[in-house]
C-alpha cells in the first residue's frame, strides 16, 4: 500500500516537478527568533481570507444579486436553508476578523521595522491589500441589501459627489444609473465577487512570494541598524549560519494560531449569529437610522464631529494623505533603527491613531450627536421635575415634550444628547437668556420663534426656570436686580418727598 502511494506520488512529480521547489520553500531557513507568537498575524490573515473565499462561494450558491430578490434570498439563507445562517454568520464574522487581523499585522510590521530595506515593496503591496480588504468590507455590506446598505450607499454617493468636477460622474459610475437600484447592487456584486477578490489573490501571491524571496524580517535588536550596503549580508548570516528551517521550526505557531482564529470566528458565528439583514431596502420607509458596520463607525463619528466647513476637505484630502503617507513610509525611513524600543515617534503614532479610532468608534456606539427621534413621545418627564410645580410650569413641561425639545436635550438622563442636558439649565441661563435662546436659537440650535406662541414660550421658560438642583439658586441677571433695586429706591425717595 505504502509503495503504491509512493509510486503514484513519483508518477505525478515526474510530470509536475513541484515537490522540490515546495520542499525548498518549506524548509528555507529563517532567523531563529522569528519563531515567535508576534509573527503569526500574516498567516492568520491568509487563513481568514481562505475562509472568506470558501464561505463566500457557499453563499453564492443561494444568494441572488438582484435588488428585487437579494433581501428575500438572505431571508431564505437565514431561515430556510439548513445552516445557511451559520455560513452567513461565518462570512460576516470572518470579515470583521479579517479587517482586525490585517490591521494588527500592519501595526506589528510597522513597529518591528519590517517595512525597511529591502522589504519596501512588500509593505506597499500590504497597503494595497489593506485597502482591498476595506473595499471588500464595504461592498460586502452593500450585498446585504437591506435598509442600512441602501442608505449607506446614499452616504457613499454623497461623499463621492463632493469630489470637484468629477463627483457627479463618479456617483453615476458607482450607482450604475441615476439612483440606487438594481444596477447598483449588480455592480457591487461584480466588485465583491470577481474584481476585488481577483486582485486580492494576485496581490496576496506577490506579497507571499516576496516574503519567501527576501526572507522574513529578523527580530529587531535595538542598536542594530539597517544599512543598504550591508543588510543583505548580515541577514544571510542570520539565516544560513544561525537560522532554522521554517518547517517545522516556526510554522507550528502559525498553525496553532490559524486554528485558534478559525475557532474564534466559528464561536462568534454560533453565539452572535449572522448580521441582519435589517429592514427591506424600500426607500419609502424613512423611519430608519442607518449605521455603518463596525470598521467604518469611526468615519460615521468623524463626520458628525467635524465642523461643516472642514468636512469636504477632510473627506477628500484626508484619505489621499493617509494612503500617500503609508506608501511613502518605506522611502522616508528605509534604513536605520528597526526596534520599536528606539523609535518613540513610531510608537506614539500607533498609539495616537489607535486611541483616535478607538474613541471615535466608542462614541458611535451611542451616537450622542443623533437626535433621539422618539424621545418627545416616548420618554416620560421624571416626576421629580414636576413635583410642586405650578400649572404654568406644567404647561411648559408639555410644550417641552410636544415641541420635540427632548429629541436633542435630555432631562433626568433620558432624551437626546445632541444639545446640552437641561437638568440644571436654570443655573446657567437667566430668564432673559432662556427666552432669547428659545426664540432665536443659535449655537447649533434651531430658532423656535416661528413655532412657539408667546404663551407657549412663557410656559416653556417657566418650566426651564425650575430646572436647577435643590439648594442651588437659579441664575439671575445681577445688573437687572441692581437696576430694579435702584428703581425701587428712587420710587421710595420720590414718595418720601
Amino acid at each position, binding site marked *: 500500500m505504502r509503495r503504491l502511494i509512493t509510486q503514484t506520488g513519483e508518477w505525478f512529480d515526474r510530470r509536475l516537478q513541484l515537490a522540490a521547489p515546495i520542499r525548498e520553500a518549506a524548509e528555507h531557513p529563517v532567523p531563529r527568533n522569528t519563531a515567535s507568537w508576534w509573527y503569526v498575524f500574516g498567516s492568520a490573515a491568509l487563513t481568514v481570507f481562505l475562509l472568506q473565499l470558501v464561505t463566500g462561494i457557499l453563499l453564492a450558491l443561494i444568494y441572488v444579486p*438582484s*435588488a*428585487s*430578490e437579494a433581501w428575500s434570498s438572505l431571508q431564505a439563507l437565514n431561515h430556510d436553508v439548513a445552516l445557511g445562517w451559520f455560513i452567513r454568520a461565518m462570512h460576516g464574522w470572518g470579515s470583521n476578523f479579517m479587517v482586525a487581523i490585517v490591521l494588527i499585522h500592519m501595526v506589528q510590521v510597522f513597529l518591528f521595522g519590517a517595512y525597511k530595506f529591502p522589504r519596501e515593496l512588500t509593505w506597499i503591496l500590504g497597503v494595497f491589500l489593506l485597502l482591498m480588504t476595506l473595499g471588500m468590507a464595504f461592498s460586502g455590506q452593500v450585498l446585504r441589501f437591506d435598509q442600512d446598505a441602501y*442608505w449607506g450607499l*446614499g*452616504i457613499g*454617493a*454623497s*461623499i463621492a*459627489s*463632493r*469630489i470637484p468636477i468629477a*463627483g*457627479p*460622474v463618479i*456617483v*453615476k*459610475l458607482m450607482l*450604475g*444609473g*441615476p*439612483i*440606487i*437600484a*438594481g*444596477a447598483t*447592487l*449588480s455592480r457591487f456584486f461584480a466588485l465583491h465577487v470577481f474584481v476585488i477578490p481577483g486582485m486580492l489573490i494576485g496581490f496576496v501571491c506577490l506579497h507571499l512570494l516576496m516574503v519567501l524571496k527576501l526572507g522574513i524580517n529578523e527580530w529587531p535588536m535595538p542598536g542594530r541598524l539597517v544599512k543598504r550596503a550591508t543588510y543583505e549580508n548580515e541577514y544571510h548570516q542570520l539565516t544560513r549560519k544561525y537560522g532554522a528551517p521554517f518547517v517545522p521550526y516556526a510554522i507550528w505557531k502559525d498553525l496553532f494560531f490559524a486554528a485558534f482564529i478559525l475557532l474564534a470566528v466559528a464561536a462568534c458565528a454560533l453565539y452572535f449569529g449572522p448580521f441582519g439583514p435589517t429592514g*427591506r*431596502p*424600500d*426607500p*419609502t420607509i*424613512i423611519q*430608519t437610522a*442607518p449605521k455603518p458596520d463596525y470598521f467604518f463607525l469611526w468615519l*460615521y463619528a468623524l*463626520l*458628525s464631529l467635524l465642523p*461643516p*466647513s472642514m*468636512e469636504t476637505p477632510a473627506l477628500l484630502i484626508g484619505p489621499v494623505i493617509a494612503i500617500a503617507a503609508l506608501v511613502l513610509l518605506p522611502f522616508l525611513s528605509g534604513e536605520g533603527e528597526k526596534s520599536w524600543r528606539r523609535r518613540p515617534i513610531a510608537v506614539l503614532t500607533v498609539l495616537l491613531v489607535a486611541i483616535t479610532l478607538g474613541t471615535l468608534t466608542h462614541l458611535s456606539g451611542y451616537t450622542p*450627536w*443623533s*437626535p433621539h*427621534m422618539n424621545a*418627545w413621545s416616548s420618554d416620560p418627564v421624571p416626576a421629580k421635575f414636576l413635583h410642586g410645580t405650578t400649572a404654568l410650569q406644567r404647561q411648559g413641561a408639555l410644550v417641552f415634550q410636544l*415641541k*420635540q*425639545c427632548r*429629541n*436633542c436635550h435630555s432631562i433626568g438622563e433620558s432624551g437626546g444628547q*445632541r444639545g446640552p442636558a437641561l437638568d440644571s439649565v436654570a443655573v446657567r441661563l437667566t430668564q432673559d437668556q432662556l427666552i432669547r435662546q428659545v426664540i432665536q*436659537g443659535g449655537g*447649533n440650535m*434651531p430658532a*423656535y420663534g*416661528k*413655532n412657539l406662541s408667546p404663551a407657549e414660550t412663557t410656559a416653556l421658560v417657566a418650566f426651564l426656570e425650575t430646572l436647577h438642583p435643590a439648594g442651588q439658586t437659579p441664575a439671575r441677571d445681577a445688573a437687572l436686580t441692581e437696576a430694579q433695586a435702584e428703581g425701587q429706591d428712587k420710587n421710595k425717595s420720590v414718595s418720601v418727598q
Partner: protein
Amino acid sequence: MSNENTISRRGLFVKIGVLFNGLVATALAVPIVRFVLSSVTRGRANAYLSWVPIGSVADFPEGETRLATFKNPYVMPTDGKTVDTACWVRRVAGDQFQVFAVNCAHLGCPVRWFPQSGLFMCPCHGGAYYRDGSRASGPPERGLFEYPYKVQDGLVTIQAGELPTPGSPTASLIGRKPPCAA
C-alpha cells in the same frame, strides 16, 4: 548575414504581432469603455429627469407637509422596491408648493418631518431644517434639495429621476437654497 536576417524577420513578425494586438485591443476598448460609462453618458443633459405625478392638489392640505411617494421614471427590470421614492410635499397656499427630497443635504440619510416643532430632523448626524427647507442647525451646509414642480389640472408633478447629492448638477439646478418664505 543570413542568420541575422532570419532573426530580424522573426523580430519583425513579433513586432507586427504586438502592433496587431494593440490595434485590436484599441478597437475593442471603444465598446468596452462605452459600456462601462453608459450610466454616465446616458445621464448627460439631464436625460434621466422627467416629470412624474405625486398626487392631486387635494391630497395636500394647505399649510401642511406630507410624505408622498413616486416611482422613479428610469426603471430596470431588477430594481424591485428601490424605484419607489419618497418626498416631502409642503403646500404653502393654493397652488404654491415646495417639494423636498427626503435625503439630508449632509450625507443623504432620510429626514423626518415634525409638524409640532416645524422641523425636519435627520437621524444620522443631527441635521435640522425649517419648514421651508432652509438649514436650521447641524452639519448640513445648505437647505434641503427641492424638486421643481408643476400644478396642472389639479395634479402635482415634479421633475425627478436622480438621487440628489450635494455635488450633482441636478441638485444645484433644482436645489437652490429655498427662499425664506415663512
